[in-house]
């Protein structure tokens, strides 16, 4: 964003990070797998989903992650969200994260919309008082004012996404992670979500955005990370990264 941001201390630091997964999920298990810890050795049925990934993010930056399917984009997002741990290297994230990943995961079918808002916002670290103060905002944004006492299971899938986005995007966290969740929902609401993300960006939040849509990437991001087979092959201005991506996929 502005030049001033590049001087601040990084909020995300990924140092030579790598993570490996099993190729065959149904393979035989041993106790060695379980307690293997940080061995660098690769067993025959494993592959590196990410390897030697190295970058830092400063506060206020808006970063788009680009790459074809299965090249490690979502895994990178999970590493930054700290919901998985690297097998080698270091991922350090200063400040909390508002993850728009599997956003409907925390909601409980049998509880009402009101109860679910308090539950999910609480799980992401908000106190009761903070939620009280934001509650109307959250409901207004989700356009669910008439459904406060409706059990979550009776909401349509569009309503569910609206509620989830509304809650997570109201979290007071300095880093916003967005996976391709916004593909759902009608066009009107998607535009509203995008406006909200821009608002947060203008407010100084850091954005980490995974998408296949060039338009969206250009709209939000200034810097791009291009992943190929788990390696970070290009880290630069979003235009350059998209250009390279387009060139690679054309052939």
């Amino acid at each position, binding site marked *: 964003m502005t030049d001033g941001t590049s001087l601040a201390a990084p909020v995300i630091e990924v140092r030579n990070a790598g993570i490996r997964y099993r190729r065959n999920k149904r393979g035989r298990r041993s106790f060695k797998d*379980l307690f293997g810890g940080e061995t660098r050795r690769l067993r025959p049925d494993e592959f590196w989903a990410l390897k030697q990934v190295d970058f830092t993010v400063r506060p206020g930056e808006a970063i788009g992650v680009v790459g074809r399917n299965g090249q490690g984009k979502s895994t990178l997002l999970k590493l930054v969200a700290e*919901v*998985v741990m690297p097998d080698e290297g270091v991922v350090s994230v200063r400040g909390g994260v508002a*993850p728009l990943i599997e956003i409907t*995961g925390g909601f409980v079918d049998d509880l009402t919309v009101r109860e679910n808002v308090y539950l999910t916002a609480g799980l992401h670290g908000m106190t009761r008082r903070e939620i009280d103060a*934001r509650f109307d905002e959250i409901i207004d944004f989700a356009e669910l004012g008439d459904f406060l006492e409706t059990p979550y299971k009776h909401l349509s899938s569009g309503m569910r996404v609206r509620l989830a986005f509304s809650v997570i995007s109201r979290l007071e966290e300095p880093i916003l992670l967005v996976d391709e969740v916004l593909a759902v929902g009608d066009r009107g609401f998607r535009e509203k979500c995008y406006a909200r993300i821009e*608002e947060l960006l203008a407010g100084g*939040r850091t954005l980490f955005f995974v998408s296949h849509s060039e338009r969206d990437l250009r709209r939000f991001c200034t810097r791009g990370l291009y992943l190929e087979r788990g390696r970070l092959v290009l880290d630069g201005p979003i235009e350059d990264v998209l250009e390279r991506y387009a060139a690679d996929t054309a052939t």
Partner: protein
Amino acid sequence: MTSAAVSAPLRERGPDRGRYWRVLWLLATRDLKVRYSTSSLGYLWSILDPLLMSVIYWFVFTQVIQRSVGEEPYIVFLLSALLPWMWFNGAVGDSTRAFLREAKLVRSTKIPRTIWVLRLVVSKGIEFLFSLPVIAAFAVFSGATVNADLALLPVAILLQAVLTTGIGLIVAPLVVFFRDLERAVKLALRFVFYASPIVYSTRNLPEGWHQLAAFNPLSGLFSLYRSAFFAAELDWYLVGVAAAISVALLGIGLLVFRRSERAVLKEI
């Protein structure tokens, strides 16, 4: 929409110690809320199960066969171990699915992972506390008297929380890798029910078995619970062994959990 709508961004937050306990409480009470909002009997279900079990054992051991174990009144004797057993059984049994049931949440939030086990111990523990009036009612009804050892109740509850958490921390991550363990645990729990002094007392065991029973931490635990009504049941040797084993299990549990966390997160 203006940027003013972005309220208080970048609030500086130090390490938020209160957050762990807040989230733990939220998750523990969520289970109870769901249970009570979806069933019309609600609270009754928490006590119906132990109640029915007690009636069955009472019938078998006092009406059908001549009982030579336990103390009078037998129903109070039974409940004073059966209710804590329900807590233990519920928490350990549920810990086999601690991660699997909440996979979506585990995958999308950075909550300290021990919470997924601890919340089961807490929510089953709350149910246990809710069921205490049942035993109080039976005590009044059958004329049992409490003694000063009732003051040991918090100690017993703490000991049980330590023990159950330790076992849960071992079981929960292992089940993710060895699904068979889920059934094995259920089976083991059924065995442990009879191997623990619930329908009988360790004092009823033949000579020689007493030493063996000490290695079951539930022996010491239930002796603590029972001492409130039956002073003779209190056996500090059993309690000491139970405490030592519980603390050791918690240590092992934390170790297993830390070491396997990385692999568990990848798997679910």
